[in-house]
């Protein structure tokens, strides 16, 4: 199929679909009509779009954990615990890494070993192996909306199964679930595959069923400058909308400087709305803020500090939801207790801050302007090199380093951009690679980093980047010498 940013015809979709449903035996149990029937009966309090809408209207920030284990019963216990004890507002099912690579055979091994070992040997819930029936059992056992969270470049079969099981939201996108998560999957392929996932949601929409889609905002979670992640988020929003998706949550991962973080969220929401409007898409937009996604401190009390500060920022930014970390983050997949603790610290902070926002100030206004300008520089160029086609543009832009995500493992990523914090902890760019910023913007970044260098009495350079990567884990935001 030729890559372009164009809604797939039904013919195109159903041709590919045959193949998709044959990738693993559980695929044959997906029946679109029957699934639609099932989805129509999902009550409002278990629907992602409905709950997000309510939160947005009330100005409340919802809390959602990450969580997933190998076996169905254990997974149900885990989710129920997070719902009842943890006070979660929205539930996830984090999918294991073999599923993410479509290595369903290895999932079977993991499932078996988990049964034997009496503990999960997989780092998530292998939804494809469990099939529609298994996934419905999970859905029916909980009282909150359920979403698949993963990191899967080719999530077509997974998406078919989870939506048919009543899960009303799917995280991911052609860029955000490829470049940070894969080494050698081409963008041509991941864009086509995510067009499929989006088109599936679009089909449900056409049948009158509202499903939510959420591009993965934080990318590598490691010092990603806001304009880069916002550009990707807007692109994935537009690609989804073209396939008929109408309920979209765009996300951003906390960088740590309050003004920059709030500015990034505001810029993201406003600019995305503008682009949707320009292209004539009718999308209900909500936002998600991710608590710090980089390396965490090992100490649990310190981890609570990081978690709570993320929650506070989410509230002050007016995010529709916040993705919650846990006090075990630095060490391993959390126990259900640790996971619940993360949610409770988060909810307490959100509730203390309910209704409070960071008021507009000169500093905030300027940061919003800067992020929007930078994002526009990138997007303009993507459209330009795609000769007006966004999908083509994305492939070209990555080839040319116009889109470039720091620390990403993909060989399709240029990897030339190097970020570093300025003296206030805001993430700026040290090496621009081919990011198409104006000279003025580049000079501004440079001057901020030089301000830091003077303060720290050292040169601007790679050591700053290394220090910044370690900093939060060591208890600081900015990686100063002798931390």
């Amino acid at each position: 199929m030729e890559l372009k940013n164009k809604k797939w015809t039904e013919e195109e979709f159903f041709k590919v679909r045959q193949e998709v449903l044959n990738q693993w035996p559980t695929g044959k149990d997906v029946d679109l009509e029957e699934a639609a029937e099932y989805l129509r009966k999902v009550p409002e309090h278990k629907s992602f779009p409905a709950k997000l809408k309510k939160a947005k209207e009330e100005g409340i920030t919802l809390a959602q954990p990450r969580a997933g284990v190998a076996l169905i019963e254990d997974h149900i216990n885990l989710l129920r615990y997070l719902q009842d004890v943890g006070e979660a507002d929205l539930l996830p099912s984090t999918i294991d890494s073999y599923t993410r690579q479509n290595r369903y055979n290895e999932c079977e091994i993991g499932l078996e070993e988990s049964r034997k070992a009496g503990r999960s040997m997989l780092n998530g819930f292998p939804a494809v192996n469990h099939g529609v029936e298994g996934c419905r059992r999970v859905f029916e056992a909980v009282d909150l909306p359920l979403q698949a969270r993963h990191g899967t470049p080719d999530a077509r079969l997974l998406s078919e199964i989870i939506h048919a099981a009543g899960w009303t939201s799917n995280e991911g996108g052609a860029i955000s679930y490829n470049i940070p998560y894969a080494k050698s999957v081409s963008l041509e392929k991941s864009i086509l595959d995510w067009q499929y996932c989006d088109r599936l949601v679009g089909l449900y929409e056409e049948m009158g069923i509202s499903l939510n889609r959420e591009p993965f905002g934080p990318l590598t979670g490691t010092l990603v400058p806001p304009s880069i992640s916002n550009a990707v988020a807007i692109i994935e929003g537009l690609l989804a909308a073209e396939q008929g998706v109408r309920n979209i949550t765009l996300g951003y991962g906390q960088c740590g400087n309050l003004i920059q973080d709030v500015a990034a969220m505001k810029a993201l929401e406003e600019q995305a709305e503008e682009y949707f409007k320009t292209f004539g898409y009718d999308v209900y937009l909500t936002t998600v803020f991710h608590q710090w996604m980089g390396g965490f401190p090992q100490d649990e009390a310190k981890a609570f500090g990081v978690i709570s500060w993320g929650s506070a920022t989410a509230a002050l930014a007016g995010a529709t939801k916040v993705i919650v970390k846990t006090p075990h983050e630095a060490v391993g997949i959390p126990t259900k207790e640790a996971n619940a603790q993360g949610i409770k610290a988060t909810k307490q902070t959100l509730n203390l801050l309910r209704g409070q926002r960071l008021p507009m100030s000169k500093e905030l206004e300027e940061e919003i302007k800067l992020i929007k300008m930078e994002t526009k520089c990138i997007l303009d160029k993507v459209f330009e090199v795609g000769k007006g086609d966004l999908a083509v543009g994305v492939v070209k832009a990555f080839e040319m380093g116009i889109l470039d995500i720091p620390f990403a493992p993909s060989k399709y990523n240029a990897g030339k951009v190097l970020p570093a914090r300025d003296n206030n902890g805001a993430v700026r760019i040290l090496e621009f690679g081919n990011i198409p910023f104006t000279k003025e913007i580049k000079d501004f970044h440079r001057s901020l980093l030089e301000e830091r260098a003077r303060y720290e009495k050292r040169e601007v350079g790679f050591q700053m980047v290394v220090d910044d990567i370690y900093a939060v884990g060591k208890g600081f935001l900015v990686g100063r010498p002798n931390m």
Partner: protein
Amino acid sequence: MGKTVVLGVIGADCHAVGNKILERAFTDAGFNVVNIGVMCSQEEFINAAIETNADAILVSSLYGHGEIDCRGLREKCDEAGLKNILLYAGGNLVVGKQEWSEVEKRFKEMGFNRVYPPGTSPEVGIKDLKHDLGIED
């Protein structure tokens, strides 16, 4: 010094940040680092070690499947003729917060010479490797 190490992240694991930092740290410490990057199979580690005549293989695993992914690596090394090659493993090797001494034991039984808990700084590994290879500081 001229000692060569193969560095990589095993299995379906995409965590790239630590890998990039390890490459830099071991290079700065004087090693000849062959970084095969993330998402590497056991075979890729072994082939790289044979091709470069490496002195050690440094395996990272962050995402939790380390235990499954590392199983049998020592045996495959033996079969491939990499007798007694140093095998180190580090990262977040298992799923969840587990008693470290037991995790270490399991990996040692699999044939790893050294095993590191979450958040170990590169310096620790460098010091051990110099010791194990008989390099003076």
